[in-house]
């Protein structure tokens, strides 16, 4: 009973507090929720749990962030919910994945666009890589392209879904090499796509660098190329697509970060935009991310805004023909 009364008292105090604090100086006054539009255990979920683990510290938000998973249809389910049903009071955050949600909004059939969300900060950048089974005959992207040229439409390769980073990379590779291949979207994210490669269900696959790095370390796959502008620190020996003569830029790099729904009070956005990048920069966070093989890339709100706008342009061009 005592707990109930205490709970009631706290709730009343919270309500009056929200009403009086215009400058949002006291934000946040209760735990904050962060929606991840992929399943528990996926790369985005795993990284989101690590980068928010210090949220409760006094020098960060001072309140813990709880992760809520709303998986489905390559992220569409979660972001649709976030754009249309989430409260814009600053207590509901979401993880974003670029280029996924931008590509989906260009393609249509969803209720969000880049304008539905306000970026806060970026925590990671996970390039797409091309993987083949450990015993595959392919040893470079040139081998892959040569096979695809001889057998148009017969080179099967897996990825996490349609209009996600993997699919963008696949489209870019096909376009750059001028070949037709068979992209097989899997249900169940990058893990399922990786399983298809290791088991030999498909001849190759596009996957996250972080997951491929692990699979390569355990000897199950070979990584043939990185779809980024530069080689990655985790894989210094793997050449980029450009080095192998394929004109593939960093459009498919999976940027992960935090956003809020449009309409969230500016005071709260400013406060989050100041605190969250600092929270990501915490040394314990960096240590855990590195241990898990997840590349970090911290960007502030303004940098993310510019990145979103640039991505929107390139994706519109790339997807125009589809």
């Amino acid at each position, binding site marked *: 009973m005592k707990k109930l009364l205490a709970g*009631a008292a706290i709730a009343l105090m919270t309500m009056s507090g929200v009403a009086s604090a215009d400058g949002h100086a006291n934000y946040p006054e209760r735990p904050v929720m962060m929606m991840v539009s992929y399943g528990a255990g996926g790369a985005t979920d795993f990284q989101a749990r690590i980068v928010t683990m210090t949220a409760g510290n006094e020098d960060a938000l001072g309140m813990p962030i709880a992760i809520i998973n709303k998986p489905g249809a390559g992220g569409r389910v979660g972001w649709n919910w976030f754009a249309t049903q989430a409260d814009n009071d600053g207590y509901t955050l979401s993880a974003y994945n670029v280029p996924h949600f931008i590509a989906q909004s260009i393609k249509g059939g969803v209720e969000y666009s880049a304008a539905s969300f306000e970026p806060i900060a970026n925590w990671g950048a996970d390039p797409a890589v091309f993987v083949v089974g450990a015993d595959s005959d392919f040893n470079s992207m040139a081998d892959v392209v040569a096979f695809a040229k001889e057998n148009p439409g017969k080179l099967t390769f897996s990825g996490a879904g349609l209009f996600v980073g993997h699919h963008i990379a696949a489209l870019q590779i096909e376009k750059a090499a001028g070949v037709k291949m068979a992209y097989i979207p899997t249900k169940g994210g990058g893990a399922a796509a990786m399983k298809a490669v290791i088991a030999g269900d498909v001849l190759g696959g596009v996957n996250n660098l972080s997951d491929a790095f692990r699979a390569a370390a355990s000897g199950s796959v070979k990584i043939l190329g990185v779809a980024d502008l530069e080689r990655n620190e985790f894989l210094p020996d793997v050449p980029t697509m450009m080095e192998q003569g394929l004109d593939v830029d960093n459009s498919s790099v999976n940027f992960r970060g935090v956003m809020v729904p449009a309409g969230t009070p500016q005071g709260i956005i400013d406060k989050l935009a100041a605190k969250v990048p600092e929270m990501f920069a915490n040394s314990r966070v960096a240590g855990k991310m590195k241990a898990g093989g997840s590349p970090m890339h911290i960007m502030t709100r303004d940098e993310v805004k510019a990145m979103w706008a640039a991505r929107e342009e390139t994706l519109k061009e790339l997807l125009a023909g589809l």
Partner: protein
Amino acid sequence: MNKLTHVFSSGAIASVGLIVAYISFTQQPSEAFLFPRLISTVFVILALWTFGKAVLGRSRTGDGVSKEALLRMAPGLIVTIIYVFWAAKAVGFYTASTVAFFILLTLYDPAPHDQAKSWIKRAIITAGFLAVMYCLFALLLKVYTPREIFF
């Protein structure tokens, strides 16, 4: 009576099946509706079979719903519907649960309504249940439920 309810229920299912089939076969893109088309076809065949059996009076399973049972469950069902579909969100989970719990006990608890003792007992059971729910969901699992009024 029994035959009529069977005809009515299987008819309702068959019409749901027909609507599903209609949507599946008219919506685009057709690749995405391939599987629903397959299912809805089997759905409609089985539902019409069941409907036919019910019309012939040969439904062998299920006891149907009697009028008396419907009357007895009606108040509880109405409280449930108001509680789940409206009150939980509008007045907050804990407030709505307290009220709904107490009303349901009052409606279905056989203890007499004219004794103070049985009312106190109901209040204690309600408070106890809510305390357990609060400890489990709010304190242990940190689930933030809607709390419009009070907590």
